[in-house]
């Protein structure tokens, strides 16, 4: 990805997340609050720096996108109004919106569920993991 492209991609992420990553003071309260921290290869507070540094390619490839729960713990507690959860979601959107970007296919569903799975689980997983 050329530097102009990653610049546009970074701007796109800032735009669709509606947050300003430059307000971050690197306190790490998001990462301290994140229940999925252990599973994340790029940690919540790093997401913000990746956008600032326009390293979008790494974000697009990272595993963290599929572990963020959108539980808003980081959004609620961020003292700088950066709301890292929204940045993660924006990065995930840029991936799933691309062709072949789906993280979940309908074919794999039967193997993943049991009889009690509420519809809500499928609906929300589809909404988060697919276009």
């Amino acid at each position, binding site marked *: 990805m050329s530097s102009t492209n990653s610049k546009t991609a970074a701007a796109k992420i800032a735009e669709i997340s509606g947050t300003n990553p430059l307000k971050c003071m690197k306190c790490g309260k998001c990462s301290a*609050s994140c229940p999925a*921290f252990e599973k994340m290869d790029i940690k919540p507070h790093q997401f913000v720096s990746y956008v600032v540094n326009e390293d979008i390619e790494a974000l697009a490839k990272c595993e963290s996108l599929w572990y963020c729960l959108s539980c808003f713990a980081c959004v609620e507690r961020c003292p700088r109004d950066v709301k890292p959860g929204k940045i993660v979601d924006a990065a995930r959107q840029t991936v799933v919106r691309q062709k072949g970007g789906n993280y979940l296919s309908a074919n794999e569903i039967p193997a993943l569920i049991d009889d009690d799975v509420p519809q809500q689980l499928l609906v929300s997983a589809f909404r988060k993991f697919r276009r």
Partner: protein
Amino acid sequence: MNGIGVFVCHCGSNIAATVDVKKVVEMAKLEPGVVHAEEYQYMCSEAGQERIAKAIREKNLSGVVVCSCSPRMHETTFRKCAEKAGLNPYMVEIANLREQCSWVHKDINEGTEKAVILTRAAIAKVSLNTSLVAGESGVTKRALVIGGGIAGIQTALDIADAGYEVDIVEKTPSIGGKMAQLDKTFPTLDCSACILTPKMVDAAAHEKINIYSYSEVEKVSGFVGDFTVDIRKKARYVDMNKCTGCGACMEKCPSKKALSEFNSGLNNRPAIYTPFAQAIPNVPVIDPSQCLKLKNDKCGLCARVCQAGAIDYKQEDEIVTRKYGAIVVATGFEVIKLDNYDEYAYSQSKDVITSLELERIMNAAGPTKGHLERLSDGKAPKNIVFIQCVGSRCADNKGKSYCSKICCMYTAKHAILIRDKYPDVNVTVFYIDVRTPGKNFDEFYRRAVEEYGVNYVKGQVGKVTPEPNGKLTVHGVDLLDNKQLKVEADMVVLAAAIEPSPEVRNIATMLTASIDTNNFITEAHPKLRPVESPTAGVFLSGVCQGPKDIPETVSQAGAAAVKVIGLLAKDKLLTNPCTAKADELLCNGCSACANVCPYGAISYEDKLINDHGIRKTHRVAVVNSALCQGCGACTVACPSGVMDLQGFSNRQIIAEVDAICR
């Protein structure tokens, strides 16, 4: 030959980089009435001023326009310069080409164009200026200090030592303020009380200092040199003159449920109380919300045990009116409420405390007699976690936008004191940045790490969870290690942000001193006049102006005192000659102007007027120029346009409007 001289300053490159100063000079020369125009590197310098003086003398200038920085910066400089050269100082106008032009615009064409217009407006105005002579007013040789913490005490002592009378108004029953609540002070670990109480005693014993404790400022009127202040002395229900301070009443008082303000609400105090043992004055007050006698006319025990007969349940608030030449605001700070930080479990667990509460726990006169123990079960803690920046440096609507400045250092102090006294206690500090700019400050913090083995972890804590076993889990992160941490703690100490005392808003309004969005009082100039408010005669001491530690507060207190002394040392003050003036010929005495005057400066007289040979007596408005502060409210209220403001006359302002819109 009279005419106007225009002097354009480069201000180094501050103006010249964005404004073509030569062009401004050229254009100025084309304006009617201008007989001289020049530019120079630094007009405010000795050489620059000499150029102005020389032009005034040689060309017999009748008006001067200096195109430079803000008039709030150098108007006085250039007025003095003109006066020395023989020109009335009020024949000088400033065109603000720096703050309001070159610094805010980037394009040199735009900047130059605007500079020319601003200069043109100043020329138009100055051509209508009239010579004004400042009047004089007296100075009441007494100062008022609002707030009796270390800032107020130090200011009062310094003023009193110079021989002037000072009154301290303190809202609580004793002077001493927040410093009296502290156990030790950084970075030298002096005992706070040991260095503060002698100053409190000095203040109380000083013949020039009068302390109004348990009192509040109620009303302020007047102006620099001549303020009139109403002070409400709240009913103490104890006669100050009779009380011997024996303390028998406090011991016997059966109502002991009120939370001790001095001990940050960690234990109780009686309804009749002094905040702490070394209180000054050592005269208790009765808290009417707690006293059984005052609430439902039962008890009366304190009156019975008082051998001096000092208890007086009938006492009422008293208003004292005093005159002052200068007023110092030293209202100090409070720790913020932690309602917005429930993730840290402050309201859910007794073992999550603020740093100020820790001060009281560590203090020998505190609720635990200085033993470090958990408030929930009295057990000695083994692991203590400190969380920095709680409510400071926030961009959300929960916290404060500023750095509270003192927290990094007092946390290092707490960590050292704990590790020193209890070496088997583990101390972890979660920080975002450690800020230690100050003499011996960083060395002090390094000692905490290197000598005392305090574990500093970079990363803000997300949540504190109380556990079923009574311990606390601190959910943090080590950003340098990129690891999430769960630290087991017995006690968690929050470095909560500080904010100006809530009453400062009201006081600022009474003093017409402006406050910023965080309720800190605005200084007259952020760099050059940091202890003065923009309102003449009102000075600032301590945290009311911005977060400060003790040494800074004491320095500022001394600086404020010097400013007050400088003012009180004068016998006369020059008054602002830009006052209102009525045209006697046209005034019909309708009273519209007097109705809007906030100073009562306008009265009416029957005057014999000679109107084109017709002599008649009629009622006209007369402005007392000693009282008039020059706001101009009356000028607009006047239905016939008779009232005008000298220095900002209708014609002058219209000339500026016309010049800008030309």
